[in-house]
């Protein structure tokens, strides 16, 4: 079976989970599965690989000298909202703060006791969401341009700002109102092409 071209990033301070059955199983389906027990290393890897298709599995509770899962998610969201982050934790739900996880667009919440099948199913769900997300498609299209083209002035906004493709990429990743508008326009284009039979859903 051909493996999916998506990298799974697992962030958990308990290195015993490095050999967890779900990680072994995930490697059968996904090209690259990486385990990070030090959050800062994971954040660095993610920030340097934003152009890749990434899904993050994130623990919440870390040693006191490390950021919490909430803080790690917040840091990821300072770079992009397009990476699905699955919370995977055994914290006492009654004592943990969840609103900011929702605000920072956590993709799903799984308990540490979840089976491999449940975790793999959730990974596939996240992978499908990337496939179906027009913002991710737009991100991929911009990434496909050369760095020189991405830096060059690309368009003018109504308020007189000049945007390069990299500026647009940032707006899209951060899902700002302007970034959402770009995605919306691309959806409108797609509908227009489908309606006029210039393209079909079967490609």
């Amino acid at each position, binding site marked *: 079976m051909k493996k999916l071209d998506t990298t799974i990033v697992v962030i958990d301070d308990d290195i015993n989970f490095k050999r967890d059955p779900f990680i072994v199983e995930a490697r059968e389906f996904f090209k690259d599965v990486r385990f990070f027990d030090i959050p800062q290393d994971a954040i660095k890897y993610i920030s340097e690989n934003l152009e890749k298709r990434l899904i993050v599995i994130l623990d919440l509770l870390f040693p006191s000298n490390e950021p919490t899962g909430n803080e790690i998610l917040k840091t990821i969201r300072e770079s992009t909202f397009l990476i699905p982050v699955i919370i995977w934790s055994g914290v006492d739900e009654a004592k943990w703060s969840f609103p900011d996880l929702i605000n920072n667009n956590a993709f799903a919440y799984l308990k540490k006791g979840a089976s491999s099948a449940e975790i793999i199913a959730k990974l596939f769900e996240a992978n499908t969401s990337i496939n179906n997300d027009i913002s991710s498609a737009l991100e991929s*299209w911009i990434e496909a341009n050369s760095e020189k083209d991405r830096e060059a002035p690309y368009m003018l906004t109504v308020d*007189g700002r000049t945007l390069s493709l990299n500026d647009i990429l940032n707006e899209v990743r951060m899902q700002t109102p302007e970034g959402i508008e770009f995605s919306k326009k691309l959806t409108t284009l797609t509908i227009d092409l489908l309606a006029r039979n*210039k393209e079909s859903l079967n490609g």
Partner: protein
Amino acid sequence: MVNAILVRDNADVALGDFFENCHNQTKAIVESVGDVSVDEMESTHIDTDIVINMKINSLHPYPFLFISYTHGNETALLKDGRMPFIAVGQNHQLLKNACVYCYACKAGKELGRAIIHAGGKCFVGYNDSVEVHLRQPEIFAECATHFIRSFSANNNVIQSAQEMKAKYTEHIDNIYKTNALSAASLVKNRDAIVIHGDNGLSLNDFRTTPNSF
């Protein structure tokens, strides 16, 4: 003889070159008709509404074309994106008797309606933001000027607007595989086109006798 006022904000920092390009194309198109008298107005003429008021007043009450490439908002055409030189409640009624085409953000909303309400013949513009992409500005300019190209060929307003939409669609189909974002903006611009007033008018309806002035 057809009288035409052509306005562009050629000194605009961001879009001045684009507006100038649209203006030059428009001027060439209308002058090729043969009996169009063109009054050109650039950024220095629209610092305030004084010059443009005098210019339009000199044509009053004869039919004329008013073609503008500037920034805009729902109620006004703007110089530098902030200073109104044609605005609802200020001087919009001067465009009574005009066929107005504005490539400006959102002016098709309230300004276009107000001009028609004040006696304007027809208004073609955009009821949403319009965008320009710098990688292929010539495509955006060709689309922006196509209404005038078609209208100058004596098609009526609705036919000319439809031909302009078709030009947008032609370019959308040409570029969407290589430049999806620009194609998406062309779709946005095309779908924002709006007509107010009498859409059956053609250039002939704006001809005055040679001795009218």
